[in-house]
């Protein structure tokens, strides 16, 4: 009798879960979707998130709310996302390679791994750029490299944070040109870089195109090189590392949307479709252009592969950075 009762209860629960499951997949979303940004409001990631969310929510039929969970260079937000229920109602930005290096740096003691996130769709690929003050003696990348070879470890080069894409980019330059070492100064963000460059406290900055376009146009600073295969449409006069013969120095900050591991495949697809439509919307394209953010849509396997490749590349340079410190 008891056995029968247990069986029937189990069966009922199973049936309920199954029907509940299908009903859920069909009717997603029934309530607002949260879109997490692991940085404070006002940054490049946040700007992109708010542009796409405002368009995507019209297609989705439910509000898409941007939630800023900044702190600890993104780690606070990503830790939160990894712990969330994988039902599609909580998705968030992963910033490559920052998300990767947080995982890869043992000092960070991250409680999540790259596999804890399902990549959904990429929005922005912001290439790296090397820039100096307008009156700097370095007119080209060649000038900088020559100077670095002549006096290794004396030219002060600013990143936007330890193990950021900019830090990795410096390591790529040092790898491509043996002997040309820079004195790395870790600053927090683009505003701090601009202040210290203008004040003459650092000599050269590694950042992303999106952060410096207005200042290049105003003539306050000079971009030496864009770390990409092709020229940036925002800086058409600036050569690329590939053109100048450094094809291994390719670096970018790539921002896309992911969710916690375990989101039903149908929901991932639905979200990817909705977000893709939103990103192809002329309104999105125009607003991102104005903000100086280069859109690069990647979904499905393509994005998953990019995520994996970025991780492997980040791993190599993170390990190298750690090894250099021990010397």
């Amino acid at each position, binding site marked *: 009798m008891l056995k029968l009762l247990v069986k029937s209860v189990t069966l009922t629960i199973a049936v309920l879960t199954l029907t509940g499951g299908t009903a859920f997949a069909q009717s997603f979303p029934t309530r607002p979707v949260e879109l997490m940004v692991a940085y*404070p*409001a*006002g940054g490049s990631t946040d700007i992109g998130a708010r542009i796409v969310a405002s368009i995507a929510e019209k297609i989705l039929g439910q509000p898409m709310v941007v939630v800023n969970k900044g*702190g*600890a*260079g993104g*780690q*606070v937000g990503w*830790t*939160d996302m990894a712990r969330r229920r994988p039902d599609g109602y909580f998705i968030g930005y992963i910033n490559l390679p920052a998300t990767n290096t*947080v995982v890869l*740096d043992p*000092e*960070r*003691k991250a*409680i999540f791994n790259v596999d804890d996130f399902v990549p959904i769709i990429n929005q922005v690929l912001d290439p790296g750029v090397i820039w100096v003050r307008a009156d700097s003696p370095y007119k080209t990348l060649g000038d900088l490299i020559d100077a670095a070879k002549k006096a290794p*470890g004396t030219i*002060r080069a600013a990143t936007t*944070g*330890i*193990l950021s894409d900019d830090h990795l980019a410096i390591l790529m330059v040092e790898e491509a040109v043996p002997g040309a070492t820079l*004195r*790395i*100064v*870790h*600053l*927090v963000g683009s*505003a701090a870089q601009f*202040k*210290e460059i*203008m*004040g*003459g*406290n*650092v000599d050269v900055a590694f950042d992303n195109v999106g952060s410096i376009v207005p200042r290049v146009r105003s003539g306050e600073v000079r971009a030496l090189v864009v770390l990409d295969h092709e020229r940036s449409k925002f800086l058409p006069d600036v050569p690329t590392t590939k053109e100048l013969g450094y094809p291994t120095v390719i670096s970018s900050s790539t921002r896309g949307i992911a969710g916690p591991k375990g989101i039903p495949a149908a929901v991932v697809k639905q979200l990817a479709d909705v977000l893709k439509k939103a990103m192809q919307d002329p309104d999105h394209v125009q607003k991102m252009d104005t903000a100086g953010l280069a859109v690069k849509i990647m979904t499905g396997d393509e994005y998953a592969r990019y995520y994996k490749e970025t991780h492997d590349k980040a791993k190599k340079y993170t390990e190298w950075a750690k090894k250099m410190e021990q010397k």
Partner: protein
Amino acid sequence: MDSLPHLLAGFAAALSPANLAYAFAGCVFGTLIGVLPGLGPAAGTAILIPITFKLDPTGAIIMLAAIYYGAMYGGTITSVLINVPGEAASVITCIDGHQMAKQGRGGTALGIAAIGSFIGGMAATIALVLVAPPLAKFALSFGPPEFFALMLLGLCLVSGLAGRSLSAALMMTALGLLISMIGIDPVRGAPRFAFGIADLYDGLGIVPVVMGLYGIAEILITVERPVQEIIRTKFSGLLPSRDEWHRSWGAIARGTGIGFFLGLIPGIGSIVPTFMAYIAEKRISKTPERFGKGAIEGVAAPETANNAYANAAMVPFLTLGIPSSPTIAVLMGAFIINGLTPGPFLFQERPDLVWTVIASFFIGNLILLILNLPLVGLWAKILHVPFKYLAVGILLLCIMGAYSLQQSAFDVWVMILCGVVGYLLRKLDLPLAPLVLGLILGPALEKSMRTSLEMSAGDFSIFVTRPLCLGLLIAAGVVVVGAAFKLAPRQLRDSEAQV
């Protein structure tokens, strides 16, 4: 005078209906905080930060700044009527203000306090407009080593001046710096003192800590005090007589000067200027025996000085990013929450915001004059609400405020724990201000020191080979040594240690 167009644009923005409403709301809240004895300006500002979350940054800052200087006005009312300072800066006002109330001249005392506050606040803001832009421009040439030295000087001033005992103040500064290191290392990204607790990765929030140290602790202290008798005053004779006015104007002028110049020095605290102004008046008075028996100068001078001080303290805060009191440290927290970093760069990056906020100081002072002169009777009525009800209300506000910061119960526990700690520290007569300033300046101090060392590839000589940096470090050393040998003026040392 290239700041005039900026200021006019600031006025245009500050006079928009929305910003005017924020300034007005801030003044009302500020006065309320000043009136309520269980709630000082630091805790009050902290509690009200969450309600500004939905506002744009400019509106939020306007409102919080108005709360800050509004509290300086409101604190007088309780000093005069029940002999209990509504906030610490009104301690000295009790002496003559309460005597005046006993003699039936309470209305005049409140009247001259409001007028003096208005004049002091306005004059200090005008001076701020003149002094701030060149100072900010100068500070732009500061690199990480100079900022490190500047912040160290700020902490030394706080430790050297804020307490009766230098060793106690240094201990509290060190404790504040230690607490500020909880969370992710600003350079290496490694968690420190977090013990695997994810809530600690971002460090302890300044707002829940201040709410606890000042708000909760203040309530615990106030509960212990006996209930005071409230003097009912007629508020008909608010304006001083010809004779009283004649006595007061000199006091107001000197109070403005003393308040403004002391406001420029970080770490003085809001009490010292009021003491200095009071003592100055007593010294130069031809009839010093009247002081303590209801002399109107004894109300006019300190009240003017504390508002001049409050507005002048905005100079080091806006131009250098150095908060000179716990309340301004909370205000700095609000800037940071809104993605703004106070300091010379803010003048360049967001002149619109800076000048709108400065313009709102003028408007706020005018609003406060209106709120305090004709409506003072209304505020006095609040004092008739029994403290037991107020205490519950304030506690509720604190808990809701701490929770709503980031919808985290963890912050509520942090606040409660800090409340208990704050109560114990006050009982032990240990100063809280150095702790709070250590906590808020800690991360920037550490970051600028480590960036400096990255610039020099680990060579400490970078701090002594740059002349400006060396000068600031020597000044910091002089302050600490001076405090150790008790070289500071006696009044500075003997004034209340708590802020």
